[in-house]
Structures are given as structure tokens and as C-alpha cells.
């Protein structure tokens, strides 16, 4: 009788075997759930509040500092925003990504999920997209609030520059999310994954730049070497690209920036896009391979 009740809840297509949903549908299902979970999570709320709050502070300070002169091309606002994005977005994306797989594995959820008619790639992509949606929402809310304040204060900030900043921040977030997810698939435990993600953040934000600075000065590095090395860092790529978008040149970055503009010219966008794309695709692909090879338990 109980069985009958259970059966009646579902329309059973008897006889013909049902075909499992395709990749796209499963990815959508999983990403929807992941997104829902993410935006309810404490980390999302805290990061969003921190990002928007700091951004608003920067906007207000810079609006006061220019004395409402209404002049603004490239100034403290954009620089401050870039700085803020460089600090907050990678940390958020890396830790979000790091939590994605490892904690599920630790709590046995991954095993349960994979016992359903889904593939590992679907689970990975679904989680990635869901988290990406949450990050997009966080970035848009934060930068949108800042742009609102700037508009209200009558600052002449270029709307196109704001849009570029938002788009590139999202690009950076995707790259960092890929790295976080890779860390997550490699790490044995969730705590290890998050720790590694924070370490990766420190490395990308501070250690690599400071090391490169020291190295460049100590080894008397040539400008093209310096530029080539700095393009390896997705954070630098984000920074240079947003500057380029706001200013149409990189000469604000001194000789190295000038070199980049002269050497690559119109191809600079392609170069940056390529680097960022590589940082998005390669770690994600590596994560997919790792996940398919590793046992989910």
C-alpha cells in the first residue's frame, strides 16, 4: 500500500526506458541549487556588504576630495575601486571555489549527488556556474551602489569605465573561482582547501608582486621581461586591462606600460583576454580531470 502511494506520486513511463537529462539541463539544475545555497550563505552576505561598504567609502571620500569640481577622468575613485576589487574579489572567489567540492566530499554529499544520474562534469560545471552567479550578483551590487553614489555626488566618472570595471571584475572572479575549484578538488579536507585558497590569495595579491618588484630591481630585469612576468598574474592582467579600458593607454604605468602599449597596440586587449581566459579555462579543466579521477568519498 505504501509502495502504491509512492508510485502514484510519480508519472511512471512504463516500458520504454527514460533517457537521463542532458548536460545542459543537469548543469542548470545543479547551478540553480548552488546559487540558491550561496546567496543564502553567510559568506556571501558578509562579502557583499564588505565590498559595497568599502566601495561606498571610497566613492564618498573621492567625491569630497575633488571638492565637487565635477572633474574626473582617471582618479582616486577608479584607482581605489581597482584596489578594492583586487583585494576582495579574488579572496571571495577563491574561498567560495575552495568550499565547493571539498566540503561536499567531506560531508558525503558529493557521493550522494553522484549516485544520481549525473556526471561529474555536470556537478563541477553546475557548482561553478552557481557560484559564478553569486559572485556576479555581489560584484554588480557593490559596483552599482558605488556608481549610484558617484552619480548622486555629480562626479564625472565615465559610465563606460564603470561597466568595464564590473565586467573585468567578473572575469577576475571567474579566474579565481576556477583556481578555488581546482584547489577544492585536490584538497583532502575542506579546511585544507580553504587554507590553501587563502594562501593562494596572499601569493597572488602580495607575494608575487613584491617578489617581482624585488627581483626586477635586484636582477635589473628588462622591461619586456618584467611585463611578461606580470602578465602571468591574473590580478595584474585585471588591473592593466581596467586601466587600459578607463584610459585607452597604459602609460600611466610608466615605462613598462608604455612598452606594452607600443609593443602590442591593438592586440593588448587580445593578450589580456587570452591570459584571463587561460586562467579561467585551465584550472577548471584541471579540476574536471582531477574530479573524474578521484574518488568522491
Amino acid at each position, binding site marked *: 500500500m505504501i509502495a502504491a502511494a509512492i508510485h502514484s506520486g510519480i508519472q511512471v513511463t512504463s516500458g520504454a526506458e527514460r533517457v537521463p537529462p542532458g548536460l545542459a539541463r543537469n548543469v542548470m539544475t545543479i547551478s540553480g541549487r548552488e546559487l540558491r545555497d550561496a546567496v543564502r550563505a553567510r559568506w556571501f552576505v558578509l562579502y557583499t556588504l564588505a565590498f559595497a561598504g568599502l566601495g561606498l567609502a571610497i566613492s564618498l571620500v573621492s567625491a569630497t576630495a575633488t571638492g565637487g569640481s565635477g572633474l574626473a577622468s582617471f582618479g582616486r575613485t577608479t584607482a581605489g575601486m581597482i584596489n578594492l576589487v583586487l583585494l576582495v574579489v579574488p579572496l571571495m572567489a577563491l574561498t567560495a571555489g575552495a568550499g565547493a567540492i571539498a566540503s561536499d566530499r567531506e560531508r558525503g*554529499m558529493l557521493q550522494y549527488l*553522484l549516485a*544520481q544520474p549525473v556526471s561529474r562534469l555536470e556537478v563541477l560545471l553546475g557548482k561553478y556556474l552557481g557560484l559564478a552567479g553569486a559572485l556576479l550578483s555581489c560584484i554588480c551590487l557593490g559596483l552599482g551602489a558605488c556608481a549610484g553614489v558617484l552619480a548622486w555626488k555629480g562626479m564625472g566618472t565615465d559610465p563606460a569605465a564603470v561597466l568595464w570595471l564590473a565586467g573585468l571584475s567578473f572575469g577576475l572572479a571567474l579566474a579565481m573561482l576556477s583556481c578555488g575549484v581546482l584547489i577544492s578538488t585536490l584538497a583532502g579536507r575542506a579546511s585544507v582547501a580553504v587554507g590553501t585558497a587563502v594562501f593562494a590569495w596572499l601569493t597572488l595579491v602580495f607575494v608575487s608582486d613584491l617578489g617581482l618588484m624585488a627581483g626586477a630591481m635586484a636582477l635589473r630585469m628588462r622591461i619586456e621581461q618584467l611585463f611578461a612576468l606580470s602578465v602571468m598574474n591574473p590580478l595584474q592582467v585585471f588591473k592593466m586591462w581596467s586601466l587600459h579600458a578607463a584610459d585607452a593607454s597604459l602609460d600611466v604605468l610608466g615605462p613598462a606600460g608604455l612598452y606594452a602599449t607600443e609593443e602590442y597596440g591593438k592586440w593588448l586587449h587580445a593578450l589580456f583576454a587570452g591570459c584571463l581566459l587561460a586562467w579561467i579555462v585551465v584550472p577548471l579543466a584541471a579540476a574536471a580531470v582531477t574530479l573524474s579521477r578521484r574518488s568522491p568519498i
Partner: protein
Amino acid sequence: MISIEHVTKRFGRGRAVSDVCLDVGTGDSVALWGLNGAGKTTLIRCVLGLISFEGRICVGGHDVGSRGKRARMLIGYVPQELSFYDELRVSEAVVFFSKLKGLGVPALDAVLGGVGLSGHEAKRIRELSGGMKQRLALAIAMLGDPPVLILDEVTASLDACGREEFVSLLAGLSGSGRTMLFASHRVEEVASLAKRVAVLEKGKLERVQSPFEFASALGAGTVVHLVIPAAARERAMAELRAGGLVPTLNGVGVLVGVDAARKAAPFRLLAEAGVPVDDFELLREGGHGTAHGRKEHA
């Protein structure tokens, strides 16, 4: 329906599953029986395609290695303990898995009603008791009425009452041509659900028996687990020893081995001595020392 051909799973140098061959036909119901570490759970994970292995497993003709999605489409799976996103509501969980199985939005009342979870739609998973979680897991497994049901020690984390309820729920499902493969360490489950029993020892499939053969083979080795208040335990030990039995203490009471035909003997002894018994449980004893299995973790 499920064909397991020469499956071996190595962990490092050891083998968790060693060259197992097993065929489970349509409508068959096979219990996997064995000690901790005998390879029951590992074999189930292999069937679900969760881990890689040597050999070949097909479910409904689909190789679980290369066509895992198709194979799992035929399977409803209930784990030992449902662990899923705690913040998710019961209804959300059902809808989520229903989508993954390619079904439309299910009729929640019927799905949840069937496992006695009506009225709990809006609860979050973390608010459910262990028994309710297992019933939710069963409801999810039964979405789409899959022809194969795979259960991995589904009652291990339930109390006696929950266990009984759950087993009767499963007994209701086992007919109607459904294929079942389940791991268990409880004789009563095996007796009421299985048509055949596959006995695993150290990863090897030792034999496949009928439940009847299985029960009689097991007869000599039954252990009764008696839950006795702490104050009365020493006295119980003394009384049982005096009655010619060999008791050992454990956390909440006493374990005592008895002949399958004389399972009531310890109760009689204790009742005569006026020692209170709160609860009891029948456990199996293998050939290698004590086996107590209130919670057996794979």
C-alpha cells in the same frame, strides 16, 4: 539486471573487493552480508560508478563505467545516512532530485505521503530526525519508480523502532518485479527482504545462499545484546556466568553469545535474578572474535 563481472578494487596494496562475480536478475533481491571491511559498501560504490575498479559492472545492460548516467538512471539509492545540504527544504530537495532524474515537478503530497513525511515539506533537512531523513532518502530514491533499488545499511543509524518501520516500508517495495541489492548486518532485514544472500569475506564473495541456508548456518553464532542500567551490570555479568554463558561488557550493557535455538536463555536467567533489561538486540557473531554492530561504519 545487475551483472558484476570479476570486479576488483584495490586501495594501495590491499584489495577491498577481490574478483567478485555476481548476477542479480530482474526481480531478484540480494543481500550483501559481511563483517566491517568485508567490502559491502565498496562493492555498492562500484555498482553506482562512484569509484573506479577493475572488471565490469552493468546495470540494465549499461556499463556503469562508460555509461554511468544511463545506468544510474535505473537505480534508486539510499545511503546509510542521508547527508545533503542541511539548509535545503524537504520540498526543494525532492524537486531538485526529481529534475536530476529528468522528471517533471512531482506531486509532493504523494511522494512524501508514501514515506510518512506529509506535512514536513517546509522543514529544512537539518530539522529532520534520523528516521525522517532516511525516509526522505527513500522517497528520493523512489522518484521515477526505478527498477533497481540499492541500499547501503540503511537502518544502521536508526533506533530499533525506526528500523522496524523502515524495514516494513522496504518490504512493501520489494515485490512487483523490482530488483534490490542491499548491504546489511541485520539478520531480520536479510530474512525479510532478501531472496538470496551473498556472503563477503575480506573482499571475496565466499558463497551465495538462500536466506534459509544463511540463517541456519548462522545459528550457532548469535549474540544477544542486552541494554542494562549501569548499576545492575556487574550483577548481570555474574548471573549470566553462573548460568554457563560467556558475557562481555560493552558501553550500555552486556553482550552474550547464545545458541540460535536458545536465544531466550539470558532473559530467563536475568528475570529470575531480578536484573532489569531495558532493551535488547540480536547480533551476529562471525568466526573471528566478537562482532558487535550497533553502528557499523564502512
